[in-house]
């Protein structure tokens, strides 16, 4: 690794903001959502309001998550080159090559990690699927919420889905979506930590500060 390193502003403020809002929302939604699916605290008195609060937090976090995802969606059109759709959708030959190389690296077939200032091609591609998963969770969530809250807004946000899928199927896949997101989050943190410790490029810090430290090979 070369000693010369450049400081690059990779993650703009909206990218970092939505990232952390998503983290908080996913934590809140998972805990309360898991409770709603299978209550793990039981009231000792009828004066308690446990399910009531859990549902309230779940719905508020759901709205927050929706806004955050909308904001990130918008930013993928107007943000810098690292946050745009182009970084998520592999559309160049180099991205596909990098995608294969990154996979090989993670499978211990290749020794050197591919260089990228922003996302690696594989990471970008993965985030595209995660993004789709977020959209599914939002639509299916509002489809179920539509049972409680009637109105055109909620029909648009997800109520229309009840005409396509059975409620119980929506519920099941809303539930399974949570596990997929949690599994992704674990892999995401582990890989971030692993790459940071290998490359010493400030990857883990970059999502707080926005800056990464690159050697120059990334622009080859």
């Amino acid at each position, binding site marked *: 690794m070369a000693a010369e390193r450049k400081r690059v502003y990779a993650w703009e403020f909206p990218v970092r903001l939505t990232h952390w809002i998503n983290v908080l929302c996913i934590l809140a939604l998972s805990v309360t959502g898991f409770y709603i699916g299978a209550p793990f605290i039981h*009231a000792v*008195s009828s004066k308690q309001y446990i*399910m009531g609060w859990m549902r309230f937090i779940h719905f508020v976090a759901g709205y927050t998550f929706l806004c955050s995802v909308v904001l990130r969606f918008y930013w993928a059109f107007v943000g810098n080159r690292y946050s745009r759709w182009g970084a998520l959708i592999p559309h160049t030959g180099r991205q596909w090559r990098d995608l294969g190389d990154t996979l090989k690296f993670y499978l211990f077939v290749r020794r050197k990690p591919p260089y990228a200032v922003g996302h690696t091609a594989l990471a970008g591609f993965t985030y595209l699927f995660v993004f789709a998963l977020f959209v599914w969770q939002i639509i299916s969530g509002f489809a179920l919420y539509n049972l409680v809250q009637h109105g055109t807004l909620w029909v648009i946000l997800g109520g229309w889905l009840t005409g396509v899928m059975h409620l*119980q*199927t929506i*519920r099941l896949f809303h539930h399974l979506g949570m596990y997929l997101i949690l599994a992704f989050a674990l892999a995401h943190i582990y890989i971030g930590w692993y790459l940071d410790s290998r490359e010493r490029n400030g990857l883990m810090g970059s999502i707080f500060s926005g800056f990464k430290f690159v050697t120059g090979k990334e622009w080859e």
Partner: protein
Amino acid sequence: MGNASGTGAPGRGSIYESLLKRGLSRRDFLSFCSVMAATLALPASLTPRIAEALEKKEKPVLVWLEFQDCAGNTESLLRATKPTVGSLVLDVLDVEYHETIMAAAGHQAEKSLYDVVKNKKGKYIAVVEGSIPVKDGGVYCCIGGRSAIDIVKEVCSNAMVTIAAGTCAAYGGLPAAAPNPTGAIGVKDAVPGITVVNLPACPMNVENLTATVVHFLTFGTLPPLDNLGRPLFAYGKRIHDNCERRAHFDAGQFVRQWGDEGHRQGWCLYEMGCKGPETFQNCPRIRWNEGVNWPVGAGHGCVGCAEPAFWDKMTPFYKRLPKVPGFGVEKTADKVGAGLAAVTGAAIVAHGIGRVLSGGRKEKEEE
């Protein structure tokens, strides 16, 4: 039960007249009218209008068809023990044909059905109970030598309105459950384009049938329906939102095992797989058997019997979530095993071919 003799007795008169003949008082009649107003979620001020309609208008002629059914909806119609609302319900309808309860049999019975279709064209109400099998030309359900699909097409397309009584007639119900061997479907799918009011549930609550008919007599129109063809007065509200145990749900007090302390206390049946949160019907409000009780009130969770595909989608009845699709343990394990064996075999073959093509080169150089 009006005239279930199949002879089409003359002078059928109004509902009010037939009630007087049964020895009921005007007070009973008015109390029936106010019960109907309440069931239809109408203000009490409309009770006189209902009474007026029932006094003046002729009883509607009704034919009741049964196909792939268990006669459960007929039971629901007949299980009225006391001369109160329950039996008043029966007097609202002039039933000309009903296989289970009619006196006539054979050709005579069939004739009475087709007499109605011919003479009362566009003026009678057709009630269908049970699903209609369409696989293999409809051979799985025939009455008097005719297939159910033939009968339902003729009788329902000439009716003023068709009422699908129970989940089987509305959506196919149990006979349509996977793998649906007879190709069972509901009335709306069997005869597209006709006016159908779906009154699903297993069985249908007969008060909803009566209220639908009373609404029709009083206002001359069908009650407003939802996108599944169900009257909003009966199916517009979620069971969970009107449940008497709802406060225990919000508090976090759940039955966790049959017969536990929570069950004795009447706590929420959510953890026992109650499908109240995904089922729309007025059970908690009008209840069953003349308002005596309803499943959740009796300590058993809702099974979602009024929803489409409930046998496939609401099961397991005692769990919150359905099974992951395609998962039967042994069957799935065998499939996974066969898949793995195929992949392994393919990998060995591919590797072998690769070795031959690369000239048996043993060691690859490091990058």
